[in-house]
């Protein structure tokens, strides 16, 4: 147990600090999280790549910085950018999911064509996996791609395509072999969102905002060479990508910020004859959440250490999504209860606190509990992969299960 950094990493941290001091004036306002980055954000991203603070381990020949993986350096970058409130490298499904997939399974041509523009924020991607009828059981997807000469012709519908309105491109799972067993009939295609026959409809959620879309395909023609991996192997290609997605969730830093905001709220707001913090029941709930947060935070350090040593934290990693999403939801729930009647205000109402962020988070986090593998699917994974418990036996009439 050693929570200090090595001399090399300490030196690296100083480098990051010097960079931030020197260049922070050039950072775009409003952070790098916008779905279609501004010109300023793209310029900033290029500067970050040039210094190795974005696309750090992507090979140089594909437009990255080409450093060897070092999870502690990545963490140092994240920590210092956050501490300085300077926008970090762009985050998008293209960067976090498509790029690693292409690096692992793409052709040389695909890598050269797509990785550079994607990591620079010049090309925006959306993900076409889920369908209205295929949620937890993703492999049952029904969007069809039939052969016609040198093209696939796609018909069907995707849902939860979060950046579809802004996206230039989509990476998409389609069924190319309808006669094969369900996992074996899927292919992974990449194509332009400007291809004729694509319609995008905003998908409003319980928050009242359209954070997602539905995307409809009618006779959408895609050249056959725009496949990643082999025909019928799309399921395995996608699983490589999903593996990368799981790492994105449950950031303890973000959870900690929410918690600190909640504690501040409870110290500052009053109800009845005192501060909300003086209400023993609400305070007790706050402290419970703080203990859980501490556990999740140190669990995160444990996972980090294991990864840095080339290991896998196993169970400690498998439980992160379930626990972190629940904790986030509970933090918001306490904030709403602490605000009482003020907590139900929304949509710019007078007396609204924090612009309604607590209510919005409360609802959106329920979506996160469900999305990316419902809590039930997460528990199956924890039990089967983490604890080695037996899978559900096969049904009398059925084929296989994910």
């Amino acid at each position, binding site marked *: 147990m050693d929570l200090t950094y090595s001399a090399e990493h300490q030196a690296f941290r100083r480098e990051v600090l010097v960079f931030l001091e020197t260049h922070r004036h050039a950072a775009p306002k409003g952070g790098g999280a916008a779905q279609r980055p501004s010109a300023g954000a793209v310029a900033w991203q290029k500067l970050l790549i040039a210094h190795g603070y974005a696309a750090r381990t992507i090979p140089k020949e594909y437009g990255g910085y080409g450093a060897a993986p070092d999870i502690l350096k990545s963490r140092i970058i994240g920590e210092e950018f956050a501490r300085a409130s300077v926008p970090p490298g762009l985050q998008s499904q293209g960067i976090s999911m498509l790029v690693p997939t292409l690096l692992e399974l793409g052709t040389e041509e695909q890598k050269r064509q797509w990785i550079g523009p994607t990591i620079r924020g010049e090309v925006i991607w959306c993900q076409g996996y*889920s369908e*209205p*009828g*295929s*949620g*937890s*059981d993703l492999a*049952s997807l029904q969007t069809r791609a039939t052969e016609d000469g040198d093209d696939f012709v796609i018909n069907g519908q995707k*849902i*939860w395509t979060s950046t579809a309105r802004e996206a230039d491109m989509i990476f998409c799972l389609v069924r190319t072999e309808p006669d094969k067993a369900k996992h074996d009939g899927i292919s992974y295609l990449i194509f332009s969102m400007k291809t004729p026959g694509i319609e995008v409809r905003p*998908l*409003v*959620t*319980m928050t*009242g905002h359209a954070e*997602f879309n539905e995307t409809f395909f009618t006779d959408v023609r895609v050249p056959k060479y725009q496949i990643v991996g082999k025909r019928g192997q799309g399921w395995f290609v996608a699983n490589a990508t999903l593996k990368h997605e799981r790492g994105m969730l449950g950031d303890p830093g973000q959870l900690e910020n929410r918690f600190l905001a909640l504690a501040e709220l409870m110290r500052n707001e*009053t*109800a*009845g*004859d005192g501060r909300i913090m003086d*209400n023993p*029941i*609400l305070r007790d709930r706050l402290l419970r959440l703080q203990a859980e947060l501490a556990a999740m935070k140190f669990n995160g350090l444990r996972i980090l250490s294991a990864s840095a040593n080339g290991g896998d934290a196993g169970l400690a990693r498998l439980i992160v999504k379930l626990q972190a999403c629940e904790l986030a939801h509970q933090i918001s*729930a306490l904030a*709403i*209860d602490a*605000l*009482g*009647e003020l*907590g*139900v*205000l*929304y*949509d*710019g*109402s*007078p*007396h609204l606190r924090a612009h309604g962020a607590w*209510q919005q988070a409360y*609802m959106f986090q*329920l*979506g996160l*509990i*469900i*999305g990316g593998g*419902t*809590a*039930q699917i997460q*528990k199956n994974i924890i039990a089967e992969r983490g604890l080695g418990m037996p899978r559900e036996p096969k*049904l009398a*009439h*059925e*084929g296989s*299960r*994910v």
Partner: protein
Amino acid sequence: MEFGLSSEQRMLQDAVTRYLAEQSPLRHVRDIAAAAKPYCPDVAAGLADLGVPGVIIPAEFGGIGLGLLEAALVAEALGHGVAPAHFAAAHVMAPLAIMLGGSDAQRRAWLPKLASGEATAAVAVSQSVERRDGSGVVAKDGWLDGTALFVLDAADAALFVVADNAAALHLVAADAAGLTQIPLTTIDKTRSVGELRLTGVKADPLPVGGAATTRRIIDAGRIMLAADILGAGAAMIEQAVAYAGTRVQFGRPIGSFQAVKHMCADMAAALEPCRSLVWYAAHAFDHAPDEASLMACHAKSHLSEVGRFVARTSTEVHGGMGFTDLAGLHYWFKRIGLDRQLLGGPELLRNEAARLQGWIAG
């Protein structure tokens, strides 16, 4: 000895349920929500035809003179149908305030209008439940000054029943000089909450009962909110069970998976006893007044906790669809969310329940 509903009571509840299913289906609720005016005059008229505005108002004033249990059954039906309509304040708390606290003149002036639905009344008693900085109404020398937050059933009200800082009630006509109304927007687009600013408004105090009348109407309001959660929660369970029966994943309806089944069983096991608790609290309000405040606290706090659990769990059973606006499940989710915080959150109510039993001082 009969702990259950009479056929007349069932008929009343069924009539409201059926009316809403036919005249205010989800499509209609959506339209009201989109228009950002959380109150629908057409639905109000339809409910008035069923006698809803006069449910507890005596026949001599044009009402149907039923008890709080019948009112709770109506509230449950309105929650079940996420009705874009007034009720707890407009049709229960306000008429009750005038019935209990009003002079003969006040009763004759207002109860017939309230019973027919010709006028509705809003209720401003939040400050009597829990003090909040920047809010409060001072009554002095016949004039009212201050601010009242979280005024219930505010939209289109002709009359406001306003508690002052000593928990005494006053009637304030909507067109009174010195009165400003400000709508507040909540997560729930099916009910109306507002703010009142009073600057030298002429007071028309309810002369009978003082703070005791306020206490009574708050008890009644809490029971109505509990019933609203009961109805909304039951609707969410029904929808979860129905969805789980038709949604197929991994080659079988998700309702055949034990995890989904147990989520539904947990919801039902938590909510079903609440029905009897709400019935009893409403019954006690009329027939066992000594228990009424305690039972109102228990009903509202317990339904708030169970309601939150059901709202969340039903959404989870619906998977991604429950999170979207497509399913519309969130109207019920938000209705339960609003009910929880009005007239006292569960922690406050449990503390009050302890005081009522003399377990702690105060």
